[in-house]
């Protein structure tokens, strides 16, 4: 086989891998959306009795909804970004297969109603061996894609390795006979925090690629500082007992002190380089702007963490929203065109990004205001204690923003899946 034909075959496999990771990422969002419908059905009288595990399906569907819309979607997108530049597609193709099997295992466990739901922070789980096997396969699959030459994502690869190390260490250090809820919370706490460095790195890469701006010394430094910040997890693990309070608080403080600077540097670098050059009315500019706004709101709300009210969901909804809107922009503006499958008219994607970004902004703002007024997180109905007009209006804004964001999300999934599956 000639060098040219080997090169062509490699390129074909690379495109196949990228397409498969994108399919996995967007399908994860579609499944998460389907499970969100399941959440509603699980609270509907009569209908709830016909669900796989009756009314208990609510918490099980909620767990997998979060895992698919957060972990699977973001990690598959991370792997897709790695695939878009990596030179050797082999490990990535194996990785996407493992990750897909992992996702299917988790879905089967959910639909079969197996395992108890645990709504612990970061990676909620169904306490069943097959569910954990699914998570492990997903983690290995993404690692196979990320840890290879030519991805240009070395800092994210390092942060991801630290996160997996934290999960493994916690699993070894926490006794199996502990109370399951406490053990699962602590098992995913440390690595879950470090995964936020990965997610932040993901949005930094997305900003850079959307701006079309070549890496500078400052942007490279931002990634180095991100990797250094994540590495401080080693200090936490060496100094503290994972069952103690100091261990838990040190990870919270890790995000407060080590995480904000790298994205600020990257945003400053991208803005300084692109302010006059970038067409902010273009789709990429629009996605970049929406991401900056939503991400900034989420970052601000992060300083109210630990208050136990709805400022916590305000923080994470806005952070995820800011990451998501940038990634949606990358998928539509860069990755689909690189596969030769661009979306024809920019009109619908523009609406989609506006609806998703605007909806997330409203959703998070409503949560923040409700939290200021004292509405507790993770409560519903009478438990919320909506005893003032301010609280009622704030939670109304939450609902309105959520509905608008969901509409934007559905439009994204519909458009991208159509382009990935169908070829004109």
């Amino acid at each position, binding site marked *: 086989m000639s060098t040219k034909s080997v090169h062509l075959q490699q390129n074909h496999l690379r495109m196949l891998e990228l397409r498969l990771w994108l399919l996995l990422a967007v399908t994860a969002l579609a499944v998460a959306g389907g499970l969100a419908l399941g959440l509603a059905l699980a609270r509907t009288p009569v209908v709830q009795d016909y669900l796989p595990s009756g009314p208990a399906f609510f*918490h099980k569907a909620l767990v997998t909804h979060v895992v698919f819309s957060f972990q699977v979607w973001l990690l598959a997108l991370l792997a897709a970004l790695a695939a878009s530049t990596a030179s050797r597609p082999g490990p990535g193709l194996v990785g996407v297969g493992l990750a897909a099997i992992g996702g299917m295992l988790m879905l089967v466990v959910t639909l079969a109603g197996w395992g108890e*739901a*645990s*709504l*612990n*922070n970061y990676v909620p789980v169904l306490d069943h061996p097959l569910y954990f096997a699914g998570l492990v396969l997903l983690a290995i699959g993404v690692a196979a894609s990320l840890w290879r030459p030519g991805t240009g994502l070395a800092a994210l690869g390092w942060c991801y390795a630290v996160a997996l190390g934290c999960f493994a260490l916690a699993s070894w250090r926490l006794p199996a006979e*502990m*109370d399951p*809820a*406490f053990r*699962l*919370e602590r098992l995913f706490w440390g690595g879950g925090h470090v995964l936020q460095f990965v997610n932040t790195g993901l949005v930094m890469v997305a900003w850079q690629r959307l701006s079309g701006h070549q890496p500078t*010394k*400052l942007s490279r*430094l*931002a990634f180095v*500082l991100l990797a*250094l*910040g994540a590495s*401080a997890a080693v*200090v*936490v693990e060496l*100094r*503290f*007992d994972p*069952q*103690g*309070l*100091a261990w*838990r*608080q*040190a990870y919270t*403080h*890790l995000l407060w*002190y*080590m995480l904000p*600077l790298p994205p600020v*540097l990257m945003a400053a670098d991208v803005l300084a380089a692109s302010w006059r050059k970038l067409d902010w009315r273009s789709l990429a500019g629009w996605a970049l702007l929406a991401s900056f706004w939503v991400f900034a709101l989420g970052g601000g709300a992060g300083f109210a963490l*630990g208050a*136990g009210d709805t400022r916590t969901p305000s923080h994470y909804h806005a952070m995820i929203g800011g990451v998501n809107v940038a990634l949606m922009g990358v998928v539509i503006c860069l990755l689909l065109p690189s596969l030769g499958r661009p979306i024809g008219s920019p009109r619908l994607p523009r609406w989609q990004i506006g609806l998703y970004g605007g909806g997330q902004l409203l959703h998070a703002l409503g949560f923040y205001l409700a939290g200021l007024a004292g509405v*507790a*997180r*993770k*409560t519903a109905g009478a*438990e919320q204690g909506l005893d003032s007009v301010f609280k009622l209006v704030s939670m109304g804004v939450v609902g309105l923003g959520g509905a608008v964001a969901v509409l934007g999300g559905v439009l994204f999934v519909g458009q991208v899946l159509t382009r990935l599956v169908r070829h004109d």
Partner: protein
Amino acid sequence: MIRLVLSVLAFLALAAWWPGWHQAEQPLGQAVDPAAFVAQTEAFAARYQRGERVEAPAGEVPLLARKFEFWPDVKLQPDHSYRLRIMAQDSVHSVAVNGVELLLVPGFVQDIDVSPGDQLELRCNEYCGLGHNRMRLKLY
């Protein structure tokens, strides 16, 4: 070049400021016989039960943190001083009061001093199961 140096200095300052380097492990509180403390709390609740709530006199108030409640449902007088003595009964819980968090572990009692004018609400701050967010007690 100046931007790079400033960025590194800012990062180093934040890293040095990070409490993870010097933070000490919080004490778990006074070690007690869990069964005896549960019995003491039950006796206290039975003695001061008034209708649906337990109206505690000024002084020491024993409390249990368990899935998913702080028990008994104590009502305090806003103009009295109290010392809340809390122990986790079943698994690890925690409580944050005036910005200070205390881990609640079975077999150890943590003390919280309540002064006149305080308006405290106890909330579990350590995920303990599906009812975790319901685990709260308004003390007034």
